[in-house]
């Protein structure tokens, strides 16, 4: 270490700026109140949550209040840009885009929710078990995952189609095949990092069961990355659903979802950009909100961020 030369003005007398005689113990609050308080303070997160709630409400109620039906074809009013009568304009069939967009958001929200649940329940659990136990368990689980990943889902779905009818349920069922794989790999990587830590060893020495260790020791230390990446998989799920509908395995015409609206609107990009721009904006807004919300949740849940 170098010898430091201390100058007279290197140190400043703090004095009573911090009253060290006072031993303030922050009042004990229940964990969730603490979390809620921290969440509320994060402006971005609150805005995110509000937007999500707002969009959800609009998706539920807007189509009910409109005089237009989402499948009402009216060729005379085709391809109109947003105006006073049709707030989002119309598509090439003259169908009101305001209603279609909100109906579509409804479907996409359900898909998004399903995707997150699948990610969490299947993906995270799979990754944690695989990463924690290591060895043969890990090997087998990873190989199964590789096999599942390499079989083109279109093949699986085409075979399924011979027994199932295309519907929202089929989509969610289809998501269960491969949606969670990315999440499980991320989880596993995080678990590998954590599982050699001393506190895990300590827990094990104290006789904690594997189950306890996985969910009470490891998970709380890795969830931050998991929440963030789970949010990022939502558009994947939405576009996957759009792709399924495109090949006839998902929603049938004239049902719509944000993904379907974007795919359809894409064809009109050069002539009527509003047809694609509007669902893209709604989706982006939704994604932004989910991400802000997810970030806020993560920050709020993180005990290391407890304020003094």
């Amino acid at each position, binding site marked *: 270490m170098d010898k430091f030369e201390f100058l007279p003005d290197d140190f400043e007398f703090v004095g009573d700026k911090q009253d060290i005689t006072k031993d303030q113990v922050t009042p004990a609050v229940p964990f969730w109140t603490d979390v809620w308080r921290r969440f509320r303070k994060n402006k*971005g997160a609150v805005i995110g949550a509000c937007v999500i709630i707002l969009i959800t409400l609009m998706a539920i109620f807007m189509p009910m209040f409109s005089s237009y039906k989402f499948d009402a074809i009216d060729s005379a009013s085709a391809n109109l840009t947003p105006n006073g009568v049709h707030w989002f304009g119309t598509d090439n069939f003259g169908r009101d885009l305001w209603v279609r967009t909100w109906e579509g958001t409804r479907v996409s929200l359900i898909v998004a929710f399903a995707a997150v649940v699948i990610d969490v329940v299947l993906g995270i659990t799979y990754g944690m078990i695989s990463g924690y136990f*290591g*060895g*043969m368990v890990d*090997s087998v689980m*990873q*190989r199964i995952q*590789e*096999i599942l*990943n*390499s*079989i*083109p889902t*279109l*093949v*699986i779905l*085409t*075979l399924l189609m*011979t027994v199932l009818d295309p519907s929202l349920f089929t989509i969610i069922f289809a998501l269960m095949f491969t949606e969670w794989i*990315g999440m499980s*790999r*991320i989880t596993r*990587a*995080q678990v*590998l*990092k954590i599982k*050699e*830590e001393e506190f895990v060893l300590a827990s094990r020495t104290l006789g904690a069961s594997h189950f306890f260790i996985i969910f009470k020791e490891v998970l709380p230390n890795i969830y*931050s*990355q998991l929440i*963030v*990446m789970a949010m*990022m998989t939502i*558009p*994947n799920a939405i*576009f996957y659903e759009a792709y399924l509908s495109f*090949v006839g395995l998902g929603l049938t015409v004239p049902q719509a979802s944000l993904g379907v609206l*974007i795919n359809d609107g*894409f064809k009109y*990009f*050069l002539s009527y950009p509003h047809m*694609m721009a509007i669902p*893209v904006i709604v*989706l*982006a807004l*939704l*994604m*932004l909100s989910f*991400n*802000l919300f997810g*970030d806020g949740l*993560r920050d709020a849940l993180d005990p*290391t*961020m407890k304020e003094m």
Partner: protein
Amino acid sequence: MDKSMLKYIAKRLLISLVTLFVIILVLFLMLKLMPGTPFNDEKLSASQKAVIMAKYGLDKPVLTQFATYFKNMCTGDFGVSYVIQKDMPISQLVGTASIISFKLGIAATIVGALIGMLLGIVAALNKNTWLDSLATIISVLGVSIPSFVFALLLLYLLGAKIHILPTAYSSTNQFVSSIMPVIALAMSVIANVARFTRTEMISVLNSDYMTLAEAKGLDHKTLIMKHALRNSLIPVITIVGPIMVNIMTGTMVVEKIFGIPGLGKLLISSIQQNDYNVTLACSFLYAFLYIVIVLVIDVSYGIIDPRIRLGKDE
């Protein structure tokens, strides 16, 4: 690399071969289960169809067909296409397309990962400032807007409105004509990598050893470069790998927009039209790449990060 690591790699390679075999077998059986045949012209009579099927050996029992296919595959003969390009050898059809898709995919992943990491680092270092918000917005847009929208936007702005870049991929002018497709493909990579890097970096910056290093008196730059970066960037390879494989194996619409003769459409059309050999070859390629990249990632992760121990717990 020590002996146990080498043993681990050897074991993994062996397992990988077995996995590949299982994948091909399962896929082969599934394809044969699918309804329909490769010969779908409305004008073919049933007897003609039977003759054509016999010609290609498609009337034999499924397991016999598989044995023949596997045997041929080991010698590099992947059969011919039945529908997409009649009677063209797969090695030619899929081979040339894959090289192009690979090049573009690797370029897009590298560009995307680098920019993504940069963005993530900047966001983490400037957490909760406008820079962070900007980075978040870019990430969100990157995933919410499909790559083909970016592709068309780029084509419209840079190819048509301002004639800066060529409007179609050309094999004689590969670098310049690849710029737009690579950017379009890289957008979602940037988005994912940026978010991931930001989260990793934030958790690293918050950890105890960083506080210790700062207390020790290390200057800001060394702190970031030597400690924070290394620890946050390592996990990034876990997501870059699978992303790269997905992009490398082709993205249909982006390729169509730029006229790139890549793998994108091959897999989907071949499944829709029962062109078995093409589906098998594309899936095999994908599986092979995926397994190899996962192996590389797992091993390098184990090497770089001393906290991680692969293999069975002692």
